[in-house]
């Protein structure tokens, strides 16, 4: 167990996988000698050279299509988008080729491709560098989606992602990159589809995603002083989604809040709410609530930016309101 940052943990993992399997390679802008805009590949170019750490032109659609062709022919690409927003120019390839080639070929082709990118609101990155997009990839068939929040999960989920034969969207929240935590050394694999119960509680279940996990944990800690016991669940992967852990929790608490930085409409909170009201209707003692980022392009100015994501105050208030129902 070493103490390291989120980004270092993911990088150690990538290094181990590249050492283990020569068919793993990375494509992205600035991921070669530069080591990645977010240091995601720092030091790897020197070890693995330009063919396996391939700096690419500004042609997102092009290199995503290429990595799809590469994955279909036996290599294991990791596409590093830097800001995940740049994935949008490649949606056609991703939806119609990457996500469908396994199905269309009746499983004779596999698609071991990892789409990694840094996401989320913060740092006044403004509207073209603050998106998340995971509800879209959960909606569409063919993708796996991982949103780790701790260094250990960053490592363990990236390792699983690289070894899976399915396309994985692997998202790293910018605000978490430099947070530290203990990380198991060597072979550490976290399976997809197993939520992490980040805090046990009895009065209310709060499912939090990405940057909202530390924020919700902070609120839960604070509310404990008021004798309010909140269970906090970090799903870790959104596709597959470990709904069982959520249902089991709601069975005990009777109340559910979902806290998510991305947009509410047709978002991941909607999906969780819909599954719970369908499958655990009798367990519910109150309405299901969602707290989301406001439905707007992300503004630049720090006070505006702060206003669009759920704050600790808003989370605490939502919990109190829901307990009063």
């Amino acid at each position, binding site marked *: 167990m070493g103490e390291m940052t989120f980004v270092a943990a993911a990088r150690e993992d990538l290094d181990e996988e590249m050492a283990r399997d*020569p*068919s793993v*390679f990375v494509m992205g802008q600035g991921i070669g000698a530069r080591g990645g805009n977010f240091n995601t590949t720092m030091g790897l170019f020197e070890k693995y050279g330009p*063919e*396996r750490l*391939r700096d*690419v*032109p500004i*042609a997102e*659609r*092009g*290199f*995503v*299509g*290429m*990595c*799809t*062709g*590469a*994955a*279909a*022919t*036996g*290599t294991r*690409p990791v596409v590093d988008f830097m800001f995940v927003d740049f994935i949008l120019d490649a949606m*056609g*390839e991703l939806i*119609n*080729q990457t996500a469908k*080639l*396994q*199905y*269309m*070929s*009746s*499983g*004779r*082709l*596999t*698609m071991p491709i990892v789409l990694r990118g840094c996401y989320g609101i913060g740092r006044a990155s403004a509207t073209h560098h603050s998106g998340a997009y995971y509800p879209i990839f959960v909606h569409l*068939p*063919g993708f*796996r989606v991982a949103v780790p929040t701790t260094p250990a999960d960053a490592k363990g989920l990236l390792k*699983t*992602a690289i*070894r*899976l*034969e*399915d396309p994985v969207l692997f998202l790293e929240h910018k605000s978490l990159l430099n947070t530290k935590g203990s990380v198991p050394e060597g072979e550490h*694999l*976290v*399976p*997809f*589809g*197993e939520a992490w119960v980040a805090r046990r509680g009895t009065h209310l279940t709060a499912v939090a995603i990405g940057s909202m996990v530390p924020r919700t944990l902070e609120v839960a800690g604070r509310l404990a002083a008021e004798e309010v016991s909140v269970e906090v669940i970090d799903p870790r992967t959104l596709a*597959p989604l*470990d709904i069982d852990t959520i249902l089991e929790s709601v069975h005990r608490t009777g109340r559910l809040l979902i806290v998510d930085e991305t947009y509410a409409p047709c978002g991941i909170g909607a999906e969780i709410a819909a599954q719970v009201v369908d499958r655990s209707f009798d367990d519910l003692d109150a309405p299901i609530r969602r707290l989301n980022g406001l439905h707007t392009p992300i503004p630049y100015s720090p006070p505006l930016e702060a206003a669009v994501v759920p704050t600790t105050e808003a989370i605490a208030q939502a919990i109190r309101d829901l307990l009063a129902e």
Partner: protein
Amino acid sequence: MATPLAATPAESGAAESAAARTALGTAEQLALFRTMVEIRRVEEGLVRAHQNGLVHGACHTYVGQEAIAAGVCAHLRPSDVVFSTHRGHGHALAKGVAAQEIAAELFGRETGCSHGRGGSMHLFKPEVGMMGTSGIVGPCILLAAGAGYSFRLQRTDNVAVAFFGDGASNNGAFHEGINMASVWDLPVLFVCENNQYATEVPYHTVSRNPDVAAKAAAYGLPSVIVDGNDILAVHAAAGEAVRRARGGGGPTLLECKTYRTRAHSEGMRDAGYRTAEEVNAWKERCPIKRFRSHLLEAASASSAELDQVEREVDALVANALAFAKDSPWPDPAMVTQHVYRSEGRAGGSVG
């Protein structure tokens, strides 16, 4: 990384073609003839089946363009890969997918090469290097470039081929994929089948430069223009390009000037945007008819030998259609199989 720009298109093609015309043996020439005839007859069979409601959805035939698939794929091994388009039956056949598997696929049957999941525009048979046709215009260029990247990483001498139309050349995928293949010297052959129309849109109304091959200069890779209705010319130019790619010399853009003599898609109107004279003139330039004449003139084959090939193909195609018609439908209970390789709680124990 700067290299001299591409030679002007066409030159190299013309020279090489003449050389290869003589070099090709009789057996090889008969094989080319057979492939073209097979493509034509399969298409004709599928057209009838479409009219009879046995083929569902859209059906874009390759009639008139047979020399291109035949001439290019003759140079490929099963481990070489082909990525194709909505007009892909010919590529699949030339790459070695059995006629019966293609017919069954278009009939929507379990025995089809895509087990009924694909139809006309989604033909998959990775076992022989047929990596899929696509209903979306453009992606095949990128997928082939990526396969080329894989082959380099794997230290194999496999080659990847993308077939696409003139219409695709105005798409961003052309620009991005060919540029990257060029700067990284990937073993790829980009085959543009310029049949002069995208659906009903004449190429000269959507590009001020009438030659797709000329656009290679922007990317610094070699390009060639050939008469796409001349099987020997296609064969020769493709041979040179495949050799270059296999030998580490990087990609080539091969433009084949050709024409589709049927409607864009079966059941669509075929008037109003081109004249009957134009269509008839191109029917006269039928690649099969021309090659037949050439073989007879050069005394490379007798009329009887060629008739025999045609009869064999006719029998094969008749069998293929019967096979398709008698094949079972896929099982709806299996419809979500293969969406993911890893089911449920994925991973963790994988390795």
